[in-house]
């Protein structure tokens, strides 16, 4: 819906700042595009900042899993940080919290890539 997600570098880590609703028909595809583009130039370290995400529906979660798989296939790592409580709850009930590496600070997250 016209909204753009921010992208910036922190060292060699590409930080993607999602915002708003990651839901069917709007944010979900935008997220996939943004992450696929980020992976396109050979980046190996992707950190998704979820701080600004208000809602993630099952399509959004599905896309996030898909992006994780794509990243892995390309030899890249995709990690998450700054999960708002409600997003954390959703990843907990879907048991995806154990799949993703999740950090609560950017410094910690960036360091974890090694």
């Amino acid at each position, binding site marked *: 819906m016209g909204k753009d997600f921010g992208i910036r570098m922190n060292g060699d880590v590409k930080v993607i700042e999602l915002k708003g609703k990651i*839901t*069917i*028909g*709007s944010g979900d595809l935008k997220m996939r595009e943004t992450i696929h583009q980020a992976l396109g130039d050979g980046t190996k370290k992707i950190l998704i900042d979820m701080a600004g995400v208000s*809602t993630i*529906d*099952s*399509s959004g*979660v*599905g*896309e996030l*899993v*898909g992006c*994780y*798989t794509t990243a892995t296939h390309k030899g890249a790592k995709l990690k998450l940080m700054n999960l708002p409580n*409600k997003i954390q*709850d*959703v990843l*907990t*009930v*879907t*048991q*995806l919290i154990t*799949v993703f590496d999740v950090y609560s600070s950017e410094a910690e997250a960036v360091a974890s890539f090694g």
Partner: protein
Amino acid sequence: MTEPEQGAVVLWLSSRYENIELVQAALGHVCRLRGIDGEMEHWIGMALREAVANAIRHGNRLDPQKRVLVSFGGDGDVLELTVGDEGDGFDPGRISDPLAPENQMKTSGRGIFYIRTFMDEVSFSRGEKGGTILTMKKDLKTRIAGKGEQ
């Protein structure tokens, strides 16, 4: 679809994902009228969005001529939501479990799980002319909304 008997607020919408936002707005309105707090509204909204998305996508196959019916009803203690579509129906007994290890990395199949997690009672039935009618109830007396088993 026939005239719904209950529901103080009923929406009929063409099958466009954008209309999910209107359903969300209507839920917000109903929650304010009924004194349902923002936390509970959030989780009910998560379930409702999935139900409407399924009606649009799987039920009506994105055919904008086909309608989705959303009804908000129930009495003081229970919020009852109904989502109907004009699709071919399906067998809800054959839904796979998104928590099963072999499904964990699938990119889909979590919608009905969301609905069952965030609502207290969920049932599927067939409409008169085919199509699916999903009825969801939320007990408004429980303090913590939806996160259920946690």
